[in-house]
């Protein structure tokens, strides 16, 4: 059988919110793009996550990206043709102790200059504002312009917007093999499709480690499975998306009235699928009732989980490969990629076109793992535009990338 051959400027592996928004950004720059997704775009972690659109609580290293994303979220309908139920409802991080309050206060001081407008609320003001909060909450920090959105709608919409803008989007198309040499990359997808491109974006989420390792950049990434649950619809009582200082439960009430609850870890069914387990569900239920006592009377109607990539420092890998010219990584968002996804897409597009990002991403380079035992030694970094750097490519490499099916 003759394979369909596509020659393009940029090939993207992975149609989550990162890969899809990169495809859209690249099209807006006028580059030719092929997006390859083994399943359906936005159907994995990007589509089944909690739906928090939050800057508050992120490490300072991520705040420039988060700020850039915040601006993009404000233009969502213009970008992707839907508001995706995005609301700047406010994000409230709860303190359960004086120490928690002090920690939130410290974060507010450190994050000055990022326009988060954090407001600490406690005591009677808190009770007046949230009479439904349980007794353990003593206060918290409100980021009024943070919010929430429906990931099931937003993430696929980025891929559709990219497609409308001219990207070639192939769904249900696992990449079987990636060959990289001085001429660029050849991606084989079964017997029917072959894609050639000088630039390759590795946006394969929890499965991105294989591609990185193939090009000599193994990363210590592991898969995690955030446990999620949702109640039946309830009368509206809560605008804010809630988190808890120090971790634990998070929850929000969606437009339909359901409360979406997250926290704890589910279990893997296999390399691709996961679900909330009994331990996570009962723990989540206990925390939910403690946080919002009225939830006692609600029914839980569904639980789920997903498969997400985590690096040890919980920072993503975002930047050019140090071993393979033309390869650019964007993965490992540790369950916090939804909000920054659209900005990461733009950064990836800039890296592809210009070889550098207009937003600081220094903390996310893949080389931070190179010195670790067992990791490949990275050659000297090149910050030159990727396309030019490619001319310096030394060795061809061809290793099979396992199909993810």
């Amino acid at each position, binding site marked *: 059988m003759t394979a369909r051959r596509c020659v393009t400027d940029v090939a993207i592996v992975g149609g989550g919110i990162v890969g899809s928004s990169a495809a859209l950004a690249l099209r807006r720059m006028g580059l030719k793009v092929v997006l390859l997704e083994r399943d359906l775009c936005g159907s994995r972690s990007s589509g089944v996550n909690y739906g928090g659109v939050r800057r508050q609580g992120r490490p300072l290293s991520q705040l420039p990206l988060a700020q850039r994303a915040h601006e993009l979220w404000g233009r969502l309908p213009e970008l992707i043709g839907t508001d995706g139920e995005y609301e700047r409802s406010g994000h409230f991080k709860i303190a359960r102790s004086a120490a928690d309050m002090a920690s939130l206060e410290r974060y507010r001081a450190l994050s000055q200059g990022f326009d988060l407008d954090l407001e600490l609320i406690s005591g009677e003001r808190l009770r007046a504002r949230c009479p439904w909060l349980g007794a353990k909450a003593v206060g918290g920090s409100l980021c009024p312009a943070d919010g929430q959105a429906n990931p099931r*709608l937003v993430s696929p919409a980025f891929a559709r917007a990219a497609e409308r803008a001219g990207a070639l989007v192939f769904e249900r198309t696992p990449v079987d093999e990636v060959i990289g040499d001085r001429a660029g990359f050849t991606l084989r997808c079964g017997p029917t499709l072959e894609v050639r491109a000088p630039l390759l974006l590795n946006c394969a989420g929890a499965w991105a480690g294989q591609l990185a390792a193939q090009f000599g950049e193994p990363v210590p990434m592991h898969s995690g499975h955030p446990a999620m649950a949702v109640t039946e619809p309830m009368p509206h009582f809560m605008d804010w998306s809630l988190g808890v200082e120090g971790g634990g439960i998070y929850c929000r009430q969606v437009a339909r009235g359901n409360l979406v609850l997250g926290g704890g870890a589910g279990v893997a*069914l296999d390399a691709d699928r996961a679900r909330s*387990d009994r*331990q996570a*569900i*009962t723990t989540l*239920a206990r925390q939910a009732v403690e946080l919002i006592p009225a939830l006692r009377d609600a029914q839980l*109607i569904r639980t789920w989980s997903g498969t997400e990539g985590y690096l040890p420092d919980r920072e993503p890998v975002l930047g050019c490969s140090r071993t393979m010219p033309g390869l650019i990584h964007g993965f490992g968002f540790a369950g916090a990629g939804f909000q920054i996804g659209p900005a990461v897409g733009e950064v990836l597009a800039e890296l592809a076109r210009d070889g550098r990002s207009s937003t600081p991403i220094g903390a996310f380079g893949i080389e931070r793992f190179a010195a670790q035992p067992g990791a490949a030694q990275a050659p000297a970094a090149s910050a030159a535009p990727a396309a030019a750097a490619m001319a310096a490519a030394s060795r061809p490499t061809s290793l099979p990338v396992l199909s993810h099916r």
Partner: protein
Amino acid sequence: MTLPVIVGAGPAGVRAAQALAAHGLRPVLVDEAPRAGGQVYRRPPAHFRRSPAELYGSEAARAVALHAAADALADRIDHRPDSLVWNAQGGVLDVLQRGRIERLPYDGLIVATGATDRVLPVPGWTLPGVTTLGGAQVALKFQGCAIGERVVLMGSGPLLYLVAYQYAKAGARVVAVLDSARLADQVAALPLMLTRPAILMKGAWYVAWLRAHGVPIVRDARPLRIVGGERVEGVEFEQGDRLQAIECDAVGIGHALRSETQLPDLLGCRFAFDELQRAHLPLRDAAGRSSVPGLYLAGDGAGILGADAAEWAGERAALALLEDRGLPVDAARARALEQRLAGLRPFRRGLERAFPFPIDWAARADDELIVCRCEHLSAGQLRRTVRETGADDINRLKALSRVGMGRCQGRMCGVAATEILAQACGRPVGEVGRLRGQAPIKPVPLSALSSAPSAVPEPEAAA
């Protein structure tokens, strides 16, 4: 000691329990109802006084026999009524029993979860006064009441006539039976149905009895809408080109049954699309072994074959469990049960011929028709989602539209949504996937979950 567990105390579950007990095991029998009997032989509360003949009509003898079998097991099994299995993983069932969460480990599991009505909505189906045929039957058997004063029963399938008979027999006024199947379908099915003349005769007898008692039966009746303001006031339907209307104050509606397959799904059983039943069903061998070792499937929960077959399949699955443990069983009995079950297949095909699925249902469904009650989604909204997004998989359509995301989690709307999706994207219904199973199998109150005993660490589920 970890015991074998049976989920469902209907015909399959009770016979499975009986067979295990007869071989010296003491199984746990978990069931949502307060008393054993299942849906088909559902029992009224203990102090109710209606006789089995009044409650079950022609099925009274079978019902009494099954109830007696269940009662006789009282000391030999661990029967847990009022218990909902809401999750399963790693060899342990999670059970909600009277507001409390329990963990129930099992060594061998027989799933006999039965069926619910297959619902194909018509305009007006969400009006107060409309129930499923099975719901109408439950009202009668469990509470001794009818769904209304003047009842129309419609849809298709054997249950249509059985419910009509049971209602009329119990003294309810059945204004009409509207069968979407044609008489010609039923005639054409005769050769297959004659393989079980006794059942065929029973069906014919219901029809004759209903006619003799002045209950109008209309075949080839295509329901157009259920009309009413605050509640049901009547039904409009079409016979050929003729529009007709009937006044009534309650409607029972259903198109045969659908299997309750969430538990085998959660436990990782392999499924395949069954053309005859237009549904994805868990695979099982002739004895009832699923694709997961130690997990057995019996009764309508793994494919609709009726109450008699459920009794045989329940016993056969129990024998398979015993065989797989190396215990001696009566091989001739096992073979005979398999032969009986196999012998029912032609009749089963005949039923599908006699009461065919209305395959043009989706094509004829108006855009305004509500498909998903919980989320109030119409056929038109689903079609628009398909058109705008290219969705061609039911889980994708769920993610994009919310269909099947409400309290029923697709148990009621899943069939209709899948039909609409297949019609809208132009693919066969067997190729648009099936709704992914997720816990809880039915809604569970947070009050119960939050007071669950802290679980000890356990090995991860091997699924």
